[in-house]
């Protein structure tokens, strides 16, 4: 017996009697004989709950998780504080076992959550409109660029140099098979090289994408990128860390056309890379070019305020080949998490998280430089993450740190060719004591 399948042999038999069949295989008689799978799947037999749990507990024990390690690793995924109430709300079956809210009368919960999510993403980014989420930051960036190429009818895009390899690689995959040319800017001290931008920004460019804080943690002059892009009739796209927006100028204030980013830091666990969510917000002008679901406010027949999926004529189930994107399932539950996070932290909390991360990162920066083992890699202002040049291989440093239950920095020498470059991320969760210990270990290494 299988506990998720209520009907037992008796039910099965009486239902088959009802259909006038004797053998379940009569229901599969339409499958041509040669295509019937006759053997047994090469999988294990079914297991009981204790057996299944034991297997996964063993696998968990073979990992070394952030419950055992103090993390200074970021590079796009951050160990921020997650309010305990989130799991209690997200764990409500009414939310997580629901489908996409296509039946608005019994989906007002999900619809209102998305509407509030859109509102809070707009608050944070300073943009006019947001969709209901994308798969993650990198795919949101790719979709934003496709949006721009459609809007501008141009087949060329420009990427800032210092964007995360995850974002770059996903964008390259999406563009390569559409024959869209991807131009990458040179870096100038870890930032956008504006001379290079000036040179490359010709009239065939649909959009310029800049990440800020960029992959090295440095704050880019998004406003200047935006002005230059607009000067050549291209769109400006900013990829931002939502937490940074508690302190840093919003994409809206910087005048960009599309703001994207990864919402992991908004209450989502690190989860070995997913599920997170991508956010995508834009101007009123571009709303009809947006990919994905959007919720709008309306009323029911009695005049009661209600919410419903709107502008569906952009989407695949209506528009098919002419849709703005093929996205259907998004990251709804992660958007719920982000909503609860933004609600819980609120106006003051988000500033506080951003401010504490900023201050602690700068404390750590000074402390690590004081060990004498590092030199700064760049001069620019940074938010919660910074790159140092070590006097030994980052791999060796990280190994030693790991032996002391510390998850060290991101090794830039391997991934980005910055010789002996190592990048540390410091969130509000790291205490002075933890940072001091990191510095002590590095000093005597």
């Amino acid at each position, binding site marked *: 017996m*299988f506990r998720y399948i*209520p009907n037992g042999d008796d*039910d*099965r038999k009486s239902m088959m009697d009802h259909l006038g069949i004797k053998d379940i295989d009569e*229901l599969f008689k339409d*499958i041509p004989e040669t295509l019937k799978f006759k053997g047994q799947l090469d999988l294990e037999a079914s297991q009981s*709950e204790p057996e299944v*749990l034991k*297997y996964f507990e063993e696998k*968990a*024990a073979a*990992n070394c998780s952030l419950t055992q390690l103090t993390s200074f690793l970021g590079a796009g995924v951050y160990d921020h504080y997650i309010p305990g109430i989130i*799991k209690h709300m997200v764990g*409500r*079956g*009414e*939310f*997580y*076992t*629901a489908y*996409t809210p296509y039946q*608005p*009368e*019994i*989906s007002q919960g999900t619809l209102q959550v*998305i509407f509030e999510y859109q509102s809070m993403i707009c608050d944070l980014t*300073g943009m006019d409109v947001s969709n209901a989420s994308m798969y993650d930051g990198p795919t949101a960036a790719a979709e934003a660029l496709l949006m721009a190429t459609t809007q501008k009818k141009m087949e060329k895009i420009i990427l800032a140099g210092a964007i995360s390899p995850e974002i770059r690689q996903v964008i390259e*995959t999406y563009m390569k098979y559409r024959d869209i040319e991807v131009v990458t800017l040179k870096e100038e001290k870890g930032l956008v090289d504006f001379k290079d931008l000036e040179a490359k920004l010709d009239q065939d460019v649909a959009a310029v994408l800049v990440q800020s804080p960029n992959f090295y943690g440095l704050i880019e002059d998004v406003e200047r990128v935006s002005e230059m892009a607009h000067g050549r009739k291209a769109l400006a796209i900013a990829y931002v860390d939502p937490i940074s927006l508690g*302190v840093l100028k*919003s994409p809206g*204030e910087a005048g960009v056309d599309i703001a994207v980013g990864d919402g992991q830091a908004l209450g989502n*666990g690190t989860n070995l890379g997913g*599920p997170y969510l991508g956010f995508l917000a834009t101007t009123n002008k571009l709303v009809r070019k947006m990919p994905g679901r959007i919720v*709008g406010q*309306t*009323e029911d*027949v009695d005049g009661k305020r209600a919410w419903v999926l709107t*502008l569906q004529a952009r*989407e695949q189930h*209506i528009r*098919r*080949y002419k849709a703005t994107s093929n*996205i*259907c*399932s998004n*990251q*709804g*539950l*992660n958007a719920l998490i982000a909503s609860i996070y933004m*609600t*819980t*932290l*609120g*106006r003051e909390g988000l*500033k*506080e998280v951003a401010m*504490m991360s*900023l201050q*602690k990162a700068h404390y750590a920066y000074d402390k690590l430089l004081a060990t004498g083992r590092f030199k700064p890699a760049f001069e620019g202002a940074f938010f919660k993450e910074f790159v140092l040049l070590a006097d030994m291989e980052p791999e060796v440093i990280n190994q030693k740190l790991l032996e002391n239950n510390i*998850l060290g920095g991101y090794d830039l020498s391997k991934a980005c060719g910055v010789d002996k470059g190592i990048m540390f991320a410091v969130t509000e969760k790291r205490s002075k004591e933890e940072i001091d210990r990191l510095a002590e270990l590095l000093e005597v290494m």
Partner: protein
Amino acid sequence: MRNYDKVIYEVSKKGRRAYRLPESDVEMKPVESLIPEAFLRKEEAPLPEVSEVDVIRHYTNLSNKNYGVDTGFYPLGSCTMKYNPKINEDVAAMPGLSQLHPYQPEKTIQGSLEIMYELQKALAEIGGMDETTLQPAAGAHGELTGILIIKAYHQLKGDFHRNKIITPDSSHGTNPATVATAGYELVEIPSNADGSVNLEALKEAIDENLAGLMLTNPSTLGLFETQIGEIAKLIHENGGLLYYDGANMNAIMGKSRPGDMGFDVMHYNLHKTFSTPHGGGGPGSGAVAVKQHLAKFLPKPVVVKTGEGYGFDYDRPESIGKIKGFYGNYGILLRAYTYIKTMGRDGLKYASETAVLNANYMMHQLKEDYKLPMNQVCKHEFVLDGLKMDELSGIRTLDVAKRLLDYGYHPPTVYFPLIVHEAIMIEPTETESRETLDEFIAAMKAIAREAKEDPELLKNAPYNTPVRRVNEVLAAKQLVLKYKDSL
């Protein structure tokens, strides 16, 4: 609190707090000394300010306005709304499995890599394929991955002229949309009335520019595509590849395999067939498996077994590249593998058999009152063509669906597939008891009676829901997409 009607901003009051962070233990410097003023935010983000109690009440009340599989029967065709086992959630929440950074050294995530490796293997086995990527985040994302793999295959052979993908007009909307996203041209061919591929139309559509065909089997009408052997032969003989849309896999686990049918590449909807929750719209997972000849094109990295254990293989020069950040919706992968282990080879087959039995049982009972375009054995779902009554009554499928809400059910999928005018697509899944099926059948029959006796009752339904029929035209006309936009 049934009438709870507040937006979170309307609960907000200055100074309220739902969080508490530790006091800063480092020196707090003036922010202007750390960041140039030009980079600082001028206007505060006007997020709400509420207490913890407000947060809990707000979301609890919103959840009460929702309907999930945990609430009741959800016969939403094509979506496989089966029960979402709770042990899946427990496993996904295990700190040792979830609190992992994607850039941690591989030696610190051996347990997770092993799970992913085993899941890759298990999915390939179920589909009759050879290698798997777990990276795609959803079904449509899997489709995109698969179609790009087809493109990479042709391009490597120098066949850049192969620029057309064929799909039947009964296909899921994501199929043609994926064709566009992948930068291909679409050739949509008409289906036969039973939703099967029209072989003549297919032959006509095939030319030297053929790149591939996308197909669902069972079809979107819930019927097995019996000509699949011939179709595969036709496509392959003309140099094309076959893509399998795995949305309807719940009908055939352990009974028939896409790989054996001749498909070269396929996706799985882990959030349908493998019981992971739909989450109110996501996250899903659209793992993709391929036959050996396409393995080198899979997105990187793929999880492999190495001398020392398990690792990510990035050294794949012919790979289409990355399709998503990191390694996929890992938390969903954990849930799916929990399900596969719980059900086992015997349970998966039993699940498909039961899903098909449940669908046939319901179809058999409903065809008295509803039009059944195809009166033959169905697979895991079936499509009705509206009520069996005078069309002049003006009662449409939408009215039946809305009336079902008053009976406490989530309605079936309606008006899809497009080739059935008044389509009602019912997929009961295997996780519903006979009693539930009987009660739903009784409700459908009662509605058929109401349609004759009191049509207005249906036209104005629903009556017992948190809101009644909503004005979609108004929503699209006067866009209010965030709080305080003027209506």
